[in-house]
């Protein structure tokens, strides 16, 4: 299974090695790593809590990966998304895509991130000096998903 939803941190070097180990047919690997920023909605953030919907999360991520595999010639895909409490600077999400061609690897990674943002059931709550606040969905994320419509 190429999808993991976990509290533990991840190691991009180890994930990259696992994806490419023993293979000589891969030409391009693209990665996306999302990190907790120390600013949210214009105010300083001291902590973040990531809530998710166990069961549906794995289903939604697997469906997104399957859709990417149907659209691009991919030789490997890995998605890791963390949940629970995360400090500023912490890694949140990793997407890795492998393909013979760089354009396919880039597009598939962007597609997976755009769909993940709007379709995977995660919710961020940011804590600052003035308390906690749920992060609002961004219109740009809907627009980013919409460009893949066909």
């Amino acid at each position, binding site marked *: 299974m190429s999808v993991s939803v976990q509290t533990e941190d991840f190691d991009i070097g180890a994930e990259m090695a696992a994806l490419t180990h023993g293979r000589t047919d891969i030409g391009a690997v693209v990665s996306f790593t*999302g990190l907790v920023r120390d600013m949210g909605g214009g105010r300083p953030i001291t902590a973040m809590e*990531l*809530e*998710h*919907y166990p*069961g*549906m999360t794995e*289903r*939604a991520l697997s469906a997104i990966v399957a859709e990417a595999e149907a659209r691009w010639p991919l030789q490997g895909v890995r998605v890791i*998304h963390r949940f629970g409490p995360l400090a500023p600077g912490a890694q*949140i*999400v990793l997407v890795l895509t492998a393909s013979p061609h760089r354009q396919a690897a880039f597009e598939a990674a962007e597609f997976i*991130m755009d769909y*993940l*943002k*709007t*379709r*995977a*059931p*995660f*919710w*961020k*709550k940011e804590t600052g000096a003035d308390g906690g606040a*749920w*992060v*609002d*969905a*961004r219109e740009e994320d809907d627009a980013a998903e919409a460009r893949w419509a066909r």
Partner: protein
Amino acid sequence: MQVLYFAWVRERIGIPREEVETSAKTVMDLIEELRAREERYAAAFADLRALKVAVDQDVTDFDADITGAREIAFFPPMTGG
């Protein structure tokens, strides 16, 4: 059926999930039943434009049929990644 709440919907209603006995045909019927229960439900379901629903873990519309469904979840738009 099991009804699940996430993020601020969960916080407003005060519980993450509950077993609901209902003869509601659609998601909207279920929402009307819940709204009529108590103020905290009415508050959670005040603005449906801010809400999404999943029936058996698939996101769907408020007029979706829920006959035979095992699990209905209410939550705001996703903000992961």
